[in-house]
């Protein structure tokens, strides 16, 4: 089959259709970094998801953690006693940071978690900042391979800044818009 199996809408619909698409309800995402399953449960009250997210993060940690040729290089970035020797399964060994927490993102609909979640291992660098692996890398999905294997900072709270002006974009707009 060359077409999508379903084509649901979450917010765009205003009334339910025959299919389960167009289901309109308030939704929001809940995201957090947790140092243990217990802290996750305290925040979310959802032991099942917390445990699954932790298990998946731990499984991904060895494959997605940054790799260092020796312990010293790893500890320089992640701190004393924070690195372990690992093996990639093809008898190549390297050093990588220990997973110090996990990231969990879930959609809530009307306050209740929906099925499915995103989770990832989180690492704390020697400056105390949280990091997680950047996406992609493996290829085979909707993106071809070659994405970076870099780490990205986890930052779940937005900075605020004093806005001095607006309307600096949009001068060339027309009523028909700019799509093409």
């Amino acid at each position, binding site marked *: 089959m*060359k*077409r*999508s*199996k*379903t*084509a*649901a*809408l*979450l*917010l*765009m*619909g*205003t*009334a339910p*259709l025959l*299919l389960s698409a*167009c289901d309109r309800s308030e939704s*929001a*995402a809940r995201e957090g970094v947790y140092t243990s399953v217990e802290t996750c449960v305290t925040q979310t009250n959802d032991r099942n998801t917390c445990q699954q997210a932790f298990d998946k993060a731990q499984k991904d940690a060895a494959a997605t953690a940054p790799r260092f040729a020796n312990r010293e290089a790893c500890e320089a970035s992640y701190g004393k006693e924070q690195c372990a020797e690992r093996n990639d399964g093809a008898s190549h060994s390297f050093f990588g940071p220990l997973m110090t927490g996990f*990231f969990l*993102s879930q*959609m809530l609909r009307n306050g209740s978690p929906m099925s499915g*979640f*995103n989770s990832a291992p989180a690492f704390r660098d020697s400056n105390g900042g949280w990091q*997680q692996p*950047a*996406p*992609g890398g493996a290829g085979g*999905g*909707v*993106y*071809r391979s070659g*994405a970076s294997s*870099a780490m*990205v900072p986890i*930052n*779940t709270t*937005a*900075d*605020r*800044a*004093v*806005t*001095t*002006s*607006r*309307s*600096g*974009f*949009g*001068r*060339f*707009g*027309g*009523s*028909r*818009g*700019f*799509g*093409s």
Partner: protein
Amino acid sequence: MRRIALAERPDWRSKAAECGFGFHTIDDAPYWDESAYYAFSLREIEHDIEAPSEELHAMALDLLDGIVGNEQQLRQLAIPEPYWDWIARSWRERQPHLYGRMDFAYDGNGPAKLYELNYDTPTSLYEAAFFQWQWLEDQLARGQLPSGSDQFNSIYESLVEAFGTIARGIARPFHFAAMRDSMEDQGTVAYLRDCALQAGIDCGTLAIEDIGVSTDGRFTDLDDRVIGALFKLYPLEDMFREAFGAYLPRSGLQLIEPPWKALLSNKGILPLLWDAHRGHPNLLAAEFDDGGELPRGWVRKPLHSREGANIAMHLADGRELRTDGPYRDGPCIRQACHSLTSFDGHYPLIGSWIVGDRACGIGIREDNSLITQDSARFVPHAIVEETRGVLIA
């Protein structure tokens, strides 16, 4: 490939209203048109459109390593110098991209010919991904299409998968922005945001005009929060020359589409592709325009023209066609003229969607002239296996 007349679904307007399709009629002229559909064979789809789309996409991306360090090509593409390093960095970091649309001339005979890459601000996405899909399901259920009919359209699944894949690489807060008063653009970003939410990404919306800049040169939303990532349905080249453009390179703002898309959503990529792959069956000969007289058999297109504006076409038989528009100044390219084929007086242009790096569906817009403009109507399609009468002697 055939154009087949078919009765409309009697309730399609109410379905459109229920599913947020507010722009099926634009300025009193029909835009969504299901009085007919285009029927393709599976081979036409897979062999003539899907495979070439993926190949051309890869060919275009493979040019980028060379372009970002090539001053002559950056000038040919009319990229302003203050943005060169920023664009190059975005490519080196492979800042995530989401989608694009290739436009092809194709009629079922011979290879599809690439007209252009809409790789920065493509629209007609919702109608291709969602409403066209709904049309097929409905018409199958009503028995109006041959049973087993299919559609080249996994755009929705690919969008949700793409958002899920890049979710962790998208800085927060993440906003979708379009021009406030453009119903069509607002509909497109509403749909993209819907898909992002389904992938578990928390995100909001913002009018392009409402974006603010802070004392320290960062971009803010209406709550004075520093915007982490911005999906903007607004041309990169216009942002470059607007008041806030100069802040972009040092603002820390992540853009989707990323800055490197300015190199591809630019008709200057067409001569560069032709130079690198001269004679490729899906490419038309192309060169940068020297401003001289346009010979027969060539089309002149401004680098940044959208919706078929400011196109000059000198047909092989000597006829000349011209469209008006806002892109009067600025550099152009020339492309060998390869006219759209008439199907009962309609000229369909195939929009082939690339989500992430996957060719995942098509949407067809047909106009009454050889140049597809914003007057074009969206006509659905189906994959229908032809049952040829085979006589066995």
